[in-house]
């Protein structure tokens, strides 16, 4: 019942929370992609880190550009 309570109500996300929530999502994408691609499972941890950083940096750059365009147009 406690577990059901955890999933029944939404958690209010404000400020930095919405930006920080990108990190675990990108990490899971990097883990799944590299687990598929790496020939040996022991190569996965070292391959995940650069991909995770690349995705996060690229997403933040795109987000900052879109935010700048939005502010210019408004």
């Amino acid at each position, binding site marked *: 019942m406690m577990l059901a309570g955890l*999933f*029944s*109500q*939404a958690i*209010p996300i404000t400020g930095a929370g919405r930006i920080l*929530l990108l990190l675990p999502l990108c990490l*899971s994408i990097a883990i799944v992609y590299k687990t598929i691609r790496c020939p040996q499972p022991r190569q996965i941890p070292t391959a995940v880190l650069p991909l995770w950083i690349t995705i996060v940096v690229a997403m933040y750059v795109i987000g900052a550009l879109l935010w700048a365009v939005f502010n210019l147009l408004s």
Partner: protein
Amino acid sequence: MRAGKTILDIPAAAMLGWVFPGLGHLYLGHRVRGWIFLATITLTYWTGIAVGGVHGTIDPKEHPWWFVAQLCNGGHTSAAYLLRSTLEPAEFVTVTPAAHYGPQPVKPLVHYGHWLSIEIGTVYTAVAGLLNLLVILDAIVRADAALRAAPAGAHAGAPWSPG
């Protein structure tokens, strides 16, 4: 590691992978990959449900295309939909940006969901579903490669063992 390699391994791996992420890989004997997929996709999916709430996140009427992506995670989406039906509220209210900054009447037995939390939760669950689609395709490719590596007799459907 499983001993038999048959033509039935391909649909079996795909089906098991759809029911639970990584189960197809575990069935094929790729234990490390299977457990990584199971842990990563399950955690991503239920983080999304926890952030957005099950009523706002799993909503086939409100956002049907996101629900299609969520359905790629068959077992988890079925469990979440069942949970949603079990916890069916008297009323579900989405707090929109305009309503969020104005006075918000709070009623008992109402599940409130902030629009931003619902959007983030929906994206998390849909991405988890699409990642599982990739995992299912990978399981199919691996089952097919194992079958091609097996002797010709195994293709007929008879179980093959390396002896």
